[in-house]
């Protein structure tokens, strides 16, 4: 937990590097001002943080660098409203507040020895990236890794450096797609759920993890069901407006579960038990 004495009090970090991923997504690599804290800070893939721009407010972002690479913590921010716009105005050397880690993590222990299928869309690759890099850093623990990732146009693809690297690796299969034909684009064209059906991965011994815009998740879940994936082998992450991040303020609940504390990671089997989740 972020701060056991006062969970509302952010810790101050300094931005070391800013990467322009797409026209409206920036990644921020940050380190704690307290160098000791950088050493004691622990988290698991899938956990999130609340970033503060003091005077503007807080918003929720997944820690998308893995715990196996602790030079910095990375958050990717898509411009959506006030806080995200203020974050986009920050540069290396600027400070912000972080409350992290919050929420649960991907069940990566249970994924050991299995084949892994990642299906992402747009900024939805952010939480998947943490787990992908974590698995690549522990490559022997997992069998085949397949990544299906799409965005509207090629410039909207996040983490282009990672994509190049994954494409070059022999132990990862990367399938990229964009929604429509685009000058110079030679890879797949079509929506992610459609491409998933074309690839038609076997559900045998496989865990599917998906994250992206709600409409994409909806069709991906349908198609995975058609491909005979079992509900408990489908993992996704949910979003809800968050404030406290510790299960109190009442904003993010689905029935008796709080996305900020019991989530954001759920299996489809768990979601089917929750009112109005899907």
């Amino acid at each position, binding site marked *: *937990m972020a701060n*056991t*004495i*006062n*969970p*509302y*009090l*952010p810790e*101050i970090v300094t931005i070391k590097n800013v990467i322009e991923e797409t026209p409206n997504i920036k990644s921020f690599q940050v380190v704690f001002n307290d160098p000791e804290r950088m050493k004691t800070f622990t988290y698991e893939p899938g956990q999130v943080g609340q970033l*503060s721009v*003091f*005077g*503007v*407010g*807080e918003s929720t972002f997944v820690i998308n660098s893995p715990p196996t690479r602790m030079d910095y913590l990375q958050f990717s921010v898509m411009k*959506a*409203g006030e806080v*995200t716009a203020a974050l986009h105005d920050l540069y290396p*050397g*600027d*400070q912000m*507040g972080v409350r992290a880690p919050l929420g649960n993590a991907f069940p990566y222990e249970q994924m050991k020895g299995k084949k892994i299928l990642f299906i992402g869309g747009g900024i939805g690759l952010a939480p998947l990236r943490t787990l992908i890099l974590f698995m690549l850093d522990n490559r022997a623990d997992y069998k085949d890794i397949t990544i299906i990732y799409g965005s509207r146009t090629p410039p909207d693809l996040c983490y282009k450096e990672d994509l190049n690297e994954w494409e070059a690796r022999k132990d990862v299969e990367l399938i990229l797609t964009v929604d429509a034909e685009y000058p110079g684009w030679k890879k797949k064209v079509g929506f992610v759920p459609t491409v998933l059906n074309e690839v038609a991965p076997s559900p045998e011994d496989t865990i599917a993890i998906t994250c992206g815009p*709600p409409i994409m998740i909806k069709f991906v879940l349908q198609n995975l069901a058609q491909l005979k994936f079992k509900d408990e082998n489908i993992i996704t992450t949910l*979003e*809800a*407006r968050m*404030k*406290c991040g*510790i*299960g*109190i*303020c*009442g*904003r*993010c*609940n*689905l*029935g*008796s579960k709080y996305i900020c504390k019991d989530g954001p990671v759920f299996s489809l089997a768990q979601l089917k038990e929750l*009112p*109005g989740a899907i």
Partner: protein
Amino acid sequence: MADTGFIPKEKWGAFIEGLSTKAQVYVPCLEGDTVLFRPFGKEKTLCFERPANSPPKSVIFPQSDTLFSFTFIKDPDNPQKTEVELKEHLDFPKTIVIGSRPCDAKGFTVYDRPYTETDTPDPYYKGRREKTTIVTMTCNSPSAGCFCTAVGGSPADKEGSDALITEVEKGYFIEALTEKGKEILQGPGVEDGKAYQGDATKKQEAVHSMVKNPFGPKGLGKVSPELFDNDEFWDNAVSKCVSCGACTYLCPTCYCFNITDEQTSDKGERIRTWDGCMYVHFTLEASGHNPRPTKFQRFKNRVGHKFSFYPEKYNGVIACCGCGRCIRYCPMSVDISEIVSNLQGA
């Protein structure tokens, strides 16, 4: 009998005034025709005759509370560089609430579970709660809409209180329930209570039967899952509601909040304010998506939280203490007890 005491009627005022020299004392005060908990002052008109319009929840959970302040400090050597300094506000004064009702006190126990009994306790709530003594008064005249006995409470319930005061013919019988409550017995003018115990017990039993039970002779039963997930049921139940949110602000067990920043020049504060799940903006996301866009979904969440989700999380405890405020003060007369009653099916 060290744990009981008695204050004669004529010494009641001096007793409260005495306590107010040692702690911040909140008492129900008559303002116009409204009874509200206010800091004690000699000029105030105290009113213990009926439940206050608004519960004393703001004493421990202020309507607006500064979580911390921040200051931007420019590096004198490098004007491009700004440091930010945070300062928490975690000092709370010793406080006594006198004249809360058993339902109000039970309200705090509903807060206690999510706010203190977790791995991330809320230091603002916990700090104030620990510094506050709740001196509850046995309800002498339940109001229209009260239904505490139907949800596990009673007009003389002790849960959540540090001391219980029962008005008897000649004065006030006090029963200390916790260590903090025992301190109250050290207040000015407190006499031996033994002789009044019997009268107090009789009074407590008499008021019990004055509270109505909206759920019929069998009491509150199980919520019908079919009705609970029936959109039409909720749409009908709440068609009158205007989403004003009064029910949430006046409810002793509603604890949702918002967090916002306020800044002037080089400093500012992060503030927590009451919020309510009946407001459309409560769950609205930046993309425009809203998981609870209609008022019936929001109302279902409010009732669901109190009668289904909270009990599911906390051993069946109902997060409504039956104070009846949301019923009495709803401008559209939406009645939660009637809706819950209907939810149980035939």
